[in-house]
Structure formats: structure tokens, C-alpha cells
């Protein structure tokens, strides 16, 4: 029997009816068409499916959709501001932090949650926050460097905004 799911995704309100067995990743990809979130290992082991729920990084393959009732979800589609990429996205491009890109949306969302909590992390803090994320192509150093670069860009952006 379907149940009602009311939640916010990337700032927009949704009111859906879902089967209880539906996972969060299925609602995002199949119901809302937000295919940026990847569904890979399906067993909690790779973090490719990471999204933010109420500001925290979680694995959308390991959460029942009904458990985010009343909550706010952010996916990779919510990062950019129109055509302007988020500093994290730009830093990933500039630092060669992906190749095939399959792990990237999960990496970006975990990095976003990290920088929201800790705007100036050390490389070790980045490694700890990202240690569940598997990437089969790129190598993890470039990803860590991109996140640190993004932290600098975000801080510069903040200072500029503060100065205005």
C-alpha cells in the first residue's frame, strides 16, 4: 500500500505517494528524474549514491524513502546556480578530480556537507570525511586537493561578499 511522502528536494516541495519498499535513490532517480545521483554497489559500500539530508551526507541506497518524510534533501543537481557551477564543481574540473565521473556526484555531496561544517579542513580531515567513497579511476589525492581548493574559493567568495 502506497504511503504519502512530503519532502523538499533542492529547495522544491514534493508530495508523492510511494511504496514503502522504495529507497531514497529510487525516488530521486525514477520518480523525480534526478539521475545525477548514482546507484552503484547497492550495498552501502561505495558512497556513489551520497546525497544530503538536512545538511548531512547519507547513502541514498541505504535509506527508505519514507524515512525522509518532512526532511530536506539536496542532490548534485542542487549545487549549481543556474549556468554557474558551484565552486566545488569548478574545483573538481580544474584539479582533474574525475575521469569517468561515476563517483563524482557522491563525492561532491559529501564534500559539500564537510565544507558546510568545516570551511577550512586539513587534508587529513578531508580524507577522514571522504574515506567511504570509492573511485576506480582518478586516485584520491586529486579529489582531496580539489576539495581543499574549493574551500579556498568558497572562503574568498565569502570575503568578497562580506566586503561589499
Amino acid at each position, binding site marked *: *500500500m502506497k*504511503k504519502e511522502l512530503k519532502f523538499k528536494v533542492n529547495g522544491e516541495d514534493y508530495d508523492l505517494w510511494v*511504496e*514503502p*519498499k522504495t*529507497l531514497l535513490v529510487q525516488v530521486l532517480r525514477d520518480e523525480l528524474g534526478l539521475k545525477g545521483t548514482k*546507484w552503484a554497489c*547497492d*550495498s*552501502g559500500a561505495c*558512497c556513489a549514491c*551520497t546525497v544530503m*539530508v538536512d545538511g*548531512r*551526507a*547519507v*547513502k541514498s541506497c*541505504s*535509506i*527508505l524513502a*519514507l*524515512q525522509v*518524510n518532512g526532511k530536506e534533501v539536496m542532490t548534485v543537481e542542487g549545487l549549481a546556480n543556474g549556468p554557474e557551477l558551484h565552486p566545488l564543481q569548478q574545483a573538481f574540473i580544474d584539479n582533474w578530480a574525475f575521469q569517468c565521473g561515476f563517483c563524482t556526484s557522491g563525492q561532491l555531496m*559529501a564534500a559539500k*556537507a564537510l565544507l558546510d561544517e568545516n570551511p577550512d579542513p586539513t587534508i587529513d580531515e578531508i580524507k*577522514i*570525511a571522504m*574515506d*567511504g*567513497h570509492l573511485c576506480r579511476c582518478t586516485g584520491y589525492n586529486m579529489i582531496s586537493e580539489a576539495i581543499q581548493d574549493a574551500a579556498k574559493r568558497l572562503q574568498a567568495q565569502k570575503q568578497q561578499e562580506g566586503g561589499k
Partner: protein
Amino acid sequence: MKTILNDFEHFAPKTVEEALDLLSRYGEEECKIVAGGQSLLILMKQRLVTPKYLIDIKGISALDYITFDEQQGLKIGALTTHRAIEKSPVIEKYYPVLAEMEQNVSSVETRNWGTIGGNISHGDPSGDPAPVFIALNGRLRIAGLNGERTVEAEDFTLGYFETVLGHDELLTEIQVPALPPHTGVKYTKFSQLQGDYATASVAVSITLEAKKKTCSDVRIALGAVAPAPMRAKKAEEILRGEKISDDLLARAGQAASEEASPTTDAEVSEEYKRELVKVLVKRVAKEAFERAKKA
């Protein structure tokens, strides 16, 4: 192809009473409690568990708390997330060993949604929290429709994924007494990769008498080397009442490695695990001892 879960009926009680009521109604049938689902959903995807009724307790916010005072000690609600424990100022101040333990449980993503009650109720012999709560002399509070009971943390897990919980019971709280003066606690897990389940893990709590020379009490708990987390009581006997020395710690390590009953798995042999226990007990007890001297 991704697995699609079996169909089930979903209940989202808002209070412990509602949850217990649902459990008494459906508990005996194919019914499961889900908290964070970090372990349960994997079992459901593998069809190892196919509940008809799922009682989703994640929304019972009254079971999400961490409190401490000197008389009552520490109380952690079953629905507190791993991450909340890791980041709690109270835990950092009074039980830093719990924050250290949490930092190595899986990834941030699991810790953000998985709950301490779910972890313990899962009864995984290689889970990290259980040995630490055993070393801390913890107790677990269990609610049923006919009332409440508490059990010692060390008696909670009976064997692989089997606990004392009845089908109509809920784990509601973890309790830890205030640490006696001059007590040091340390936990270390050995795993193949950062965040992986333990190959072997050891938690030790050492209390020194007032002059900080002899060990007045000690608790040694082992994880992943028996069907359930266990106390190494023979190893404890070697240290209790004695002056701690490197030689004595090595003997305790040897005793613990004989008490453990590990099995060979896909990655590591039984002998290797015994060797790990021997070395880890010696090292972890030494660090607990150093901490006790400073406490």
C-alpha cells in the same frame, strides 16, 4: 539490475508505547524493527530477511539523547546516531574512548544515519560499540509491553546476530556508570581498511588504587574473535590487584589469546587472529594504564 525490496507494510510509530503496541500485534509474525536501516536493508536486499511488517522507529525522537551526571552516569538513547556520539561535547569530556571508537565505524555517511541501538541490536560479533560498552561496565535498557528490564552489556549478545531481545521488545537506552577515579579506557580495532569491520578488536578499562601503583580493577573486552563480544576474564585476573608491568601485560595478552575462540574467515586465519589478540591486549592495556595514571 538493482535489487528491489520485497513488499512490506510500513508503520512509523511516534512513541515507544506505539512501537511496543505494534510489536505485540505483529512481533511474532514476519516483522522487523528498522532504525537507520544501515544493516537491515542490506539483509533485506539479500533476501536473508523478508519482513511482512516493518516497524520504523527512526522517528521516535524521544529516544535520541545523550545525558550525563556524576550520580546517574551516561545515558544514550537507542536512536542516537553514531555521528552524534562522535561529536558530543559530553562524550568528549567524560568518555573520549567512545568518540575514538565511533570515528572508525564505517564512513561518515553510515554514522550520520545509523543508530547506536541498531548497531547493538544487530548483534554483529565484529561491531565496534559493544566491546567498549562492555569494558565501560555498561547496561542496556530494554522495554516491553509488560515493563522494562536492564541487562549487562556483556550478557546482551548471545552469538552471531543473536541477542537477548524478545520479538516484542525494544532496546531503548545504553547506560554507563561514571568512571571511578584513576580509570583509563582505550579501544583499538584492527581492520584491513579504514572503516572496515574489525578483524579483531580490544577494549580495556583499568582502574588504579589511590597511589596509582596497583591495578584495583580491570575489564578487558574482545570483539570479532568469538561468536559474540566477550570478556577476557583470565587475562583480567592476571592484572587485577597487581602492579602493572610490561611482563604482566604480555602475560595477560597471552591469556586473552587463549581464551578467545576465533574462526578462520575468507581473509584471515584463526592463528593470525589469536596473534592479533595477544599483541592488541598488551598494547591497548598499556595505553589504558597510561591514561589511568593521568586520570
